[in-house]
C-alpha cells in the first residue's frame, strides 16, 4: 500500500471531508491511494473503510474553490468527498476520469415530445387562434378604438424610422397638403368608410406607403419623389384606401400584438431573440398580407376607374419601384405592404383593357410639383 505524499504536501492534505449522502454528518477521512487495485481508500474516523475504484470517481464541475476538488463515485452518487490542497487535488485530477453530472439527465425522447407539444401549441395559437380572434376583433372594434390603435402604432413606426433617436419628421408644406387632400377626395368619393382617411407624408427616402388602423395612410417622401406622374401616386393611394376599407391594418396590428407576446415567450430575453422575433413576425405579416394585397389591388382598379384614371397607373408604379430595386428586398421589406410582382402588374394592365389612353390626371402640373416638394 502506497500513501500518496506529494513533495510539498502538508500532513492535512492526506485527509479529506466525506459525507455519505444519508446524514448531514461530515467525516474527516484519511486518504490512501492503492495502486495495485487502482482505488482510493477512505478510512473513517470511527474505523471502517470505503473503497472507491478510481475508474468510478467523478469530479463535480464548475466549482468555485480552485484549491478544492469535489468528487463522487458513480456507485454512490449521493456521497461527496471534498479534497483540499493543491498537490493532492492535482494528483487526484490526473487519475480520475471526467466529470459527474448530478441529477437525472432528461431523455432526448421526452424533450422531443414536449418540444413538439410546445411547437404545436405555439403554432396553433399563432397561426390559427390569434388570426381568428384578430379577424373577429377587427370587425367588433369601434372606429374610435381603431383610430387610437393607429395612432399608437404610428408613433412606434416614426421612432423606428427616425435618425439618431429623433422620430421621423412629418411633412406638411401648405400647397402640397392641399394637393394630397384633393387626390384623396377624388379617390374616396362615394365610399362609406367608418372613419375619414387621414394622410401623412413622412420625411424618409424609402419608396413605400402603408396604411394603419383607423384610416391613417402614410406615404414616404421617397415614393413621391420616385413617382413619374400624379397617377402613380393616386394608384398607390387607392390601393392603401383598399386596405383601410377592408380593415386589413387593424387585423394585422391585433395579430402582431398577440403573436409578439408568444414569440417573446419562446425566445426569451436575450440579444439573439430580438432579431429572430422581428424576423418571425415579418414572416407572419408577409404571409398575412399576400391574400389581402390582391383584394386591395382590385379595389384600387375600381377606384381609379371611378376617378376617371387608368388602373395600369398601379402597374407603372410597380415598374418604377422595381427599377429602383425596391422590390421588397432587404430590411425595407419589413415595412413593405406591397411586393410588386409580375402577376399584379399584369392584373392592373388587364383591368385597363379597352380604356382611352389619354386620361385627365387628378392634379394639375403645379399641384403635382408642390406635392413632390411637400418635404422640400
Amino acid at each position, binding site marked *: 500500500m502506497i500513501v500518496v505524499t506529494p513533495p510539498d504536501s502538508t500532513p492535512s492534505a492526506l485527509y479529506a471531508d466525506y459525507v455519505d449522502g444519508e446524514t448531514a*454528518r461530515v467525516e474527516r477521512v484519511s486518504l490512501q491511494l492503492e495502486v495495485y487495485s487502482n482505488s482510493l481508500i477512505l478510512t473513517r474516523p470511527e474505523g471502517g473503510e470505503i473503497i472507491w475504484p478510481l475508474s468510478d470517481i467523478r469530479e463535480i464541475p464548475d466549482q468555485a474553490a480552485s484549491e478544492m476538488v469535489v468528487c463522487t463515485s458513480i456507485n454512490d452518487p449521493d456521497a461527496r468527498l471534498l479534497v483540499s490542497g493543491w498537490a493532492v487535488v492535482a494528483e487526484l485530477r490526473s487519475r480520475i476520469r471526467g466529470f459527474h453530472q448530478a441529477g437525472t439527465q432528461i431523455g432526448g425522447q421526452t424533450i422531443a415530445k414536449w418540444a413538439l407539444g410546445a411547437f404545436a401549441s405555439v403554432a396553433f*395559437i399563432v397561426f390559427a387562434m390569434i388570426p381568428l*380572434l384578430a379577424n373577429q376583433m377587427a370587425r367588433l372594434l369601434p372606429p374610435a378604438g381603431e383610430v387610437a390603435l393607429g395612432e399608437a402604432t404610428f408613433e412606434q413606426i416614426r421612432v423606428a424610422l427616425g435618425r439618431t433617436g429623433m422620430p421621423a419628421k412629418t411633412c406638411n408644406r401648405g400647397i402640397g397638403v392641399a394637393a394630397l387632400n384633393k387626390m384623396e377626395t377624388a379617390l374616396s368619393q362615394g365610399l362609406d368608410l367608418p372613419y375619414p382617411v387621414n394622410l401623412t407624408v413622412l420625411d424618409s427616402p424609402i419608396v413605400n406607403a402603408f396604411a394603419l388602423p383607423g384610416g391613417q395612410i402614410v406615404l414616404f417622401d421617397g415614393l413621391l419623389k420616385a413617382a413619374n406622374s400624379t397617377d402613380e401616386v393616386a394608384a398607390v393611394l387607392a390601393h392603401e384606401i383598399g386596405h383601410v376599407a377592408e380593415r386589413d391594418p387593424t387585423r394585422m396590428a391585433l395579430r402582431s400584438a398577440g403573436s409578439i407576446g408568444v414569440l417573446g415567450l419562446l425566445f426569451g430575453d436575450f440579444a439573439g431573440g430580438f432579431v*429572430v422575433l422581428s424576423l418571425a413576425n415579418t414572416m407572419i405579416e408577409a404571409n398575412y398580407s399576400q391574400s389581402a394585397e390582391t383584394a386591395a389591388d382590385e379595389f384600387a382598379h375600381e377606384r381609379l376607374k371611378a376617378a376617371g384614371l387608368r388602373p395600369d397607373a398601379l402597374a407603372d408604379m410597380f415598374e418604377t419601384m422595381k427599377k429602383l430595386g425596391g422590390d421588397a428586398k432587404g430590411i425595407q421589406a419589413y415595412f413593405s405592404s406591397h411586393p410588386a410582382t409580375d402577376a399584379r402588374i399584369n392584373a392592373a394592365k388587364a383591368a385597363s383593357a379597352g380604356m382611352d389612353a389619354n386620361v385627365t390626371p387628378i392634379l394639375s402640373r403645379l399641384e403635382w410639383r408642390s406635392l413632390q416638394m411637400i418635404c422640400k
Partner: protein
Amino acid sequence: MAIGSLKTLFAGEKGPLFQLAFKTSLLTFLTLGIYRFWMKTRMRRYLWSAIVPGGAPLEYTGRGSEKLLGFLIAVVFLAFYIGVVNLILMFISFTVMNGSGGGYLLSFVGLIPVYFFARYRARRYILARTRWRGIRFGLEPGAWGYAWRAIVHLLISILSLGWLWPRMTFWLEKYRTDRTWYGDAKFTQGGKWTMLYGPFKHLIVPAYISIAIGVGLSVVSNPISLGMLLIVTIPWALVGFVHYRVQSFRILAENKSLAGLQFQPHPRSSRILGIYILGPILVSILAGLALGLLGGVFAVIANFPGMPGIDAQLLLQGGSIATWLVIGFGALTYFFIFILYGALYQTFVTLPLIGHYAETLSIMGAESLVQVTQRHRDDAKEAGGFAEALDVGAAI
C-alpha cells in the same frame, strides 16, 4: 467562538466567474437562446459552490436538459395565456378606453397571480436541487396557495397605503419558510411581522414626505421644496428601500430555526447599497470602453472609400454588399456589448452581492446537524419553467 458555530466562506472569484458567464452567454447567442438553460445551470453551479458554510460548499444539482423540459412544459400553457389573453385585453382596452395603456395595465394585472405562482415553483425547484453536506433541501408543494395569499396580502398593503407592507413581507416569508426542509428537518419562521418596522420606517417616512412635497409642488412651485425632494427625500427613500430589503432579510433569517440550528446573518445595508451603485457604474464604464474601441474600428470600416455612410435610412433602402457588411458589423458589435455587459454585471454586481450575504452569515448549533438525514428526491418536473418563461427567475 462557541462550539458548533459555523462561519461561512465565500470562494467566488471575479476572473473565473466572468469567463464562465462570457463563454456561456456566447454559446447562448450562437444557439439562438437554446443554451440559456445550460448557461443558467452552470452559473448556479458555480455560485452555489462559492458559498461554503463550515467548510462544505453548497452544491447545485440541476440539469440544463431539465430546465429546457420545464420551459417547454410551461410554454404549452403560457402561450395560450400570453397570446390569447393579451389580445383580448388589448381589444378591451381599445374598445372601452381608446388607448393601449389600459390594455398593458390589465395584462400586467392578469399576470400577477402567474408571477407569484411561478416564483414559488421556481423556489421549489431550486431548493430541490440544492445540497449541503450531501443532504437535499426541499420545499413542499403549495404554489397556488402562495399565489392567492400573496394577492390578498398585496391588496391589504395597497389598501393600507403601504403601512402594512411589512405584514406581507413577513407572512409570505413565513409561508415559504414553514414549508422548507433540509433533509428530514423542517425550517420554522418565528418572530412577529411588527419586528420589520425598524428598517421599514426609512422607506415609508421618506416616501410619504416625498409625496407630500410632490403634491405641494403641483400647487405652488418652490425651488427649495424641489431641492428637498430631489436631494433629500427621494434618495432617502431609495436608500431606505435597499435598507429594508437587506435588514428584513436579516431579521427574518435571525428568527428562522432548523432542528436546533440558529442563523446569524450580519449583512450591511451600506455594503449592499455600494454594490448596487458602484457595480453598474463600473460595468457601464468597462462596457463603454469596449464599445468605444469597436466604434473606432467601425468608423474606420464605414469611412473606407466606396463604403456608404452610416445613415439608418439609407441602410433601410438595402442594397450593396458593403451596406450589409456595415449592418453585420454593427449587429455583431451590439450583441458583443450585450453579452459583455451581462457577464460584467454578473461579475461586479451579482457575485459581490452573494459574496457579502455569504461572508456575513454564521450558523449556530451545528452539532445537531448530525441527526439530519436525507430526504427523497423531489422531481419538481417543470423545473421552474414558468419563472423561466416569464423571466421572473431573478438575476441567477
